[in-house]
């Protein structure tokens, strides 16, 4: 119906005045991500200089091995946060998954082939319930998922307060698998699983309509609704996906620990949120990149590794140093990513880093039904 050539009513479309002075080649919108990545490099480099044995491929790979489950959960969390919500149930659903797995496999003698799909379904269902309750009753995600967090943790204790060791060969075998890599290094099944989830999520978030709808909802739910985007469906999907990821993280956790325990993954939701946010995603929604979450998790892992290599910190200094490193990191991230935009204030900043900088972007009023 539209014909490009003859529908031009005027000779040439008028261009808006050219933008301010030429900037470096780098797309400014990718700057925060690059800065984060760069800072990760610096941090890892600093560790290598400071500690013997730090600079090795295996130490780097250990970041993945030890944080695979966190990465999986954080990917789900990224989706939730981009849509402008939050999911506090991540850690407990992970724990519940380990518990159900262990209980059914060890105490009931069910086959893992049956149990694994079952727990994934369970995680997704918990997420689905969150999503439906949040959407249907228009409740705040914080409170709904907080209740979910209590519930999942509580269900763990109902199964057993004690931990259940897993000795089923299926699990022990998988947890023993190491895929060899050059220089006598290796990675575990979890790493492959986590990277698979990550890639899937990157595709989902950045190349599908669903993913972009997610960003639209995070930017302004009201607008997304008026734009005729499937808001309800997408929001429910987001929580379902997060529940699914949590369950998958639980499976990875089981491979990692070979046990089910109600106190597993305590506070993992905070770690996941922190990783997502450190990776450049805005808690207010609508901005961020799934790959940023990977970097966020790596940074989190590096901070921990640094402290373990340090090895002389007392318990309290450990906490203080974690806090300080996080602080330094976030401040640098802010300062560096902002440098080119400093010339412009509110509006210019909005223009340059609008996708990644919360402070200056206007906060949407969801209640506003415009006119």
């Amino acid at each position, binding site marked *: 119906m539209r014909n490009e050539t003859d529908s031009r009513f005027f000779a040439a479309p008028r261009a808006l005045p050219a933008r301010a002075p030429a900037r470096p080649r780098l797309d400014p919108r990718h700057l925060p991500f690059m800065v984060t990545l760069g800072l990760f490099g610096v941090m890892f480099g600093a560790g290598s200089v400071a500690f013997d044995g730090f600079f090795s491929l295996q130490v780097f790979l250990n970041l993945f091995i030890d944080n695979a489950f966190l990465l999986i959960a954080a990917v789900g969390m990224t989706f939730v946060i981009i849509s402008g919500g939050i999911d506090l149930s991540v850690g407990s659903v992970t724990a519940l998954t380990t518990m159900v797995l262990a209980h059914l496999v060890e105490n009931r003698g069910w086959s893992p082939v049956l149990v694994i799909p079952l727990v994934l379904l369970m995680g997704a269902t918990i997420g689905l319930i969150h999503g439906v309750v949040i959407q249907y009753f228009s409740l705040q995600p914080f409170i709904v998922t907080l209740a979910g967090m209590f519930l999942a943790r509580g269900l763990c204790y109902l199964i057993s307060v004690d931990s259940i060791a897993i000795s089923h060969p299926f699990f022990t075998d998988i947890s023993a698998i190491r895929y060899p890599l050059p220089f006598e290094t290796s990675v575990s099944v979890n790493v492959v699983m986590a990277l698979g989830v990550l890639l899937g999520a990157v595709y989902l978030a950045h190349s599908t309509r669903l993913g972009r709808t997610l960003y639209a909802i995070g930017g302004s739910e009201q607008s997304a609704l008026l734009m005729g985007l499937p808001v309800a469906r997408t929001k429910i999907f987001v929580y379902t996906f997060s529940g699914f990821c949590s369950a998958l993280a639980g499976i990875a956790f089981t491979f990692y*620990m070979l046990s089910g325990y109600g106190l597993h993954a*305590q506070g993992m939701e905070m770690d996941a949120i922190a990783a997502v946010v450190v990776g450049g995603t805005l808690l207010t929604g609508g901005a961020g990149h799934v790959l940023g979450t990977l970097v966020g998790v790596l940074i989190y892992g590096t901070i921990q590794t640094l402290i373990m290599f340090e090895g002389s910190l007392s*318990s309290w200094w450990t906490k203080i140093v974690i806090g300080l490193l996080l602080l330094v990191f976030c401040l640098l991230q802010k300062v560096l990513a902002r440098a080119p935009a400093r010339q412009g204030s509110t509006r210019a900043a909005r223009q340059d880093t609008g996708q990644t900088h919360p402070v200056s972007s206007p906060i949407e009023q969801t209640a506003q039904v415009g006119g």
Partner: protein
Amino acid sequence: KDSIVLGFSQVGAESEWRTANTQSIKEAATQEGITLKFSDAQQKQENQIKAIRSFIAQRVNVIAFSPVVETGWEPVLREAKAARIPVILTDRAVSVKDESLWLSFLGSDFVEEGRRAAKWLVGYAPIQELAAKGEVNIVELQGTVGSAPAIDRKKGFEEVLKDQPKFKIIRSQTGDFTRAKGKEVMEAFLKAEGKKINVLYAHNDDMAIGAIQAIEEAGLKPGKDVIIVSIDAVKGAFEAMIAGKLNCTVECNPQLGPQLMRLVKDVVAGKQVPRRIVTQESVFPQESAAREFPNRKY
């Protein structure tokens, strides 16, 4: 000659007991000239596993750790074994099928502590009198739900009382090992059960100390109207016993440092070490408090 490097992964700093434990290990290491790589896991097993992995990467001589839970150590301990680093467990054991994954276990037995508390109670004269007249009503302040000491201390205590039909646990609730919660829960118990309560069994001294305050505020006399027995034997418990407000505390010794260092040295020297080393622990009834108090370090 290079000094021995010991990698030690502590559970966290969640209680006074734990802090004292850490301190003892650190001091002993300095004294013995052992280089200590210390890592705090903030109550998370995954952090302990990460720490052990980083010890392996750093090629320490010996790895020691206080496991958060018994289960789930198999994979990482196998890595340690592959790297030929001996592993010592402190404070509590792990359950792994391959027993060769760890060398020695140094620590206390939580179930035994529970048993001792119960045994003392059953043998305590005023309680026997009570039991002779009727039932003995016990309220229990549990530790953090799911935590090993909470589970085991409950188990040991109940094990002994199983054969004592007159002893009844009428209320049991978690006080999270803290004074504040202990006090809060005890307040609620007192409101709900009133004077029926004869005995308080607390999984650690801190909760007992909190509960003592609640009992006093309710106008009852702790140590008389309500008999109190708890575990850990920290300094505060002795103060309470001296004041006559606590009846008995079962020791759970955190001073594992010297013993651990000796063990480490033996291991590095290639000596044969015992598989299980039980720490010296006793039961302190009220009468012994004043005598024992000056010896308490923590």
